[in-house]
């Protein structure tokens, strides 16, 4: 190993140890910051899964006239599948629709009897369409309405649910934006707090930096141990944070399923342990290194 690098690492570790309280304080603040960043990560997982679950509840159905033949309906289906906005199309035949209706109303004797009275199946065949994005249902509905297939179509339930779908689509977009914005703002606050703490820690050592410069040390020679110390704050904080998340996610795991419908945070923590640790570690080390480099620069002007 390069002599300079070896000395910088050694001095950084020794300084971390000898600066005692200052190191502990800086590491604690860094732990708090990484905890905030980790919590945002978990919140985002919950938010994203809750929002996509809501999104999946939304679909539209196209009901066909009784005279529409099955192969005609299937050609509509394949035409729809070609559209980039469409995620999935399911065909429900008249018989299937009747089966489902019956299953749903087995307990209701009146309905069952009324159906038996009828000779014909009163239900229509339909296509159930799910879009990639809730905002695209209108495009799909307009496509069907204005296409050659429109004469086969009896009704598209989008036009009944349009207001609800649009509102929901707006809500989902807003929720994602708020989630993203909150992540950004809180991460930024956490980083600023860490930066200022390290700056204060280095401020207390500004005379030492000046002395080192006056005995002939280059800026790099003076800065390197501080950068090592900053990286140490980050690395230790990442280890402490990931340990703290173990009991917290274990405790919140069942609640996350109850309130958000999953995933279980503890399962998520365990199955993504290394990825989460890597994110915290890289964030911590980068934050420590950058803060230390920037903070020492000011006092290196001697």
């Amino acid at each position, binding site marked *: 190993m390069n*002599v300079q690098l070896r*000395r910088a690492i050694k001095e950084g570790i*020794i*300084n971390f140890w*000898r*600066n005692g309280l200052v190191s502990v304080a800086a590491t604690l603040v860094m732990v708090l910051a990484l905890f905030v960043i980790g919590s945002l990560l978990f919140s985002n997982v919950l938010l994203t899964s809750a929002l996509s679950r809501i999104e999946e509840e939304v679909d539209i159905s196209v009901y066909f006239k009784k005279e529409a033949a099955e192969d005609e309906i299937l050609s509509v289906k394949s035409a729809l599948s070609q559209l980039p906005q469409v995620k999935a199309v399911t065909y429900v035949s008249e018989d299937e629709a009747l089966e489902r209706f019956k299953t749903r109303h087995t307990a209701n004797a009146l309905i069952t009897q009324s159906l038996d009275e009828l000779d014909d199946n009163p239900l229509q065949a339909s296509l159930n369409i799910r879009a990639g994005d809730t905002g695209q249902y209108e495009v799909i509905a307009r496509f069907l309405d204005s296409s050659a297939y429109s004469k086969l179509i009896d009704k598209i339930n989008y036009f009944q649910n349009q207001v609800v779908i649009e509102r929901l689509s707006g809500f989902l977009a807003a929720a994602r934006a708020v989630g993203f914005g909150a992540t950004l703002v809180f991460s930024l606050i956490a980083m600023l707090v860490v930066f200022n703490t390290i700056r204060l820690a280095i401020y207390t050592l500004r*005379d*030492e930096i*000046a*002395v*080192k*410069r*006056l*005995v*002939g*040390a*280059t*800026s790099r*020679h003076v800065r390197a141990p501080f950068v090592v110390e900053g990286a140490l704050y980050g690395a230790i904080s990442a280890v402490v944070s990931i340990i703290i998340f173990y009991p917290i996610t274990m405790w919140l795991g069942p609640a996350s399923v109850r309130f958000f419908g999953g995933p279980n945070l503890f399962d998520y923590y365990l199955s993504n342990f290394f990825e989460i640790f890597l994110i915290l570690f890289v964030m911590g080390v980068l934050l420590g290194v950058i803060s230390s480099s920037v903070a020492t620069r000011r006092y290196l002007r*001697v």
Partner: protein
Amino acid sequence: MIYFDKVSKVYSPTSIALEDVSFSVEPKEFVSIVGHSGAGKTTLLKMLLAEDKPTSGKVFFESINVHEASRDELPKIRRRIGSIFQDFRLLPTKTAYENIAFAMEAAGATDEDVENDVPQALELVGLVNKALHFPHELSGGEKQRVAIARAIVNHPEVILADEPTGNLDPINTKEIAELLKKINNLGTTVMLATHNHDVVNSLGRRVITLDKGKLARDDKKGRYII
């Protein structure tokens, strides 16, 4: 070797630290710079170390104007100048040994050189048994001797001593003055800023007297006269 060329330092119109000061120092000279507090002694030494910039004028170390030295050049110049301060300015989280070793490492010395030279420097100042002590565990005189060991360990061409005895008792003062004399006898140029009459008079060397920032006297074998 060292040349101050019409150096002025003006902090504000009512606070003039140095005014048009010119003089030169030859190799192996021992120059005492004397004057009352606020006469500009410390400012003058800071100018040579490029710790502070002059308002006008130039300061040369050999042929280099130290205030025009690049960021890469400046540390190299400073390694050729050993500094000793009134308040010692030791690194508080480093032991006596590490304080001296730091100056060598900063100059790019190898581990072998550090292991060899640091004990020698400690021996020269009589502190071998205090090598592993931190500055707060040392007396004022001992701290100053560590600072001197740090200043000389890289075999500098010049030693700048800014009131090195200002915080010391008469016995320690005498010892430090003797050490500086010894260093000068070994061939190192010494610039000593002080307001200690006894030290200056006992040396019998060149004395530059500053008064309110101006060069008042420059005597070859001078005494402290103000």
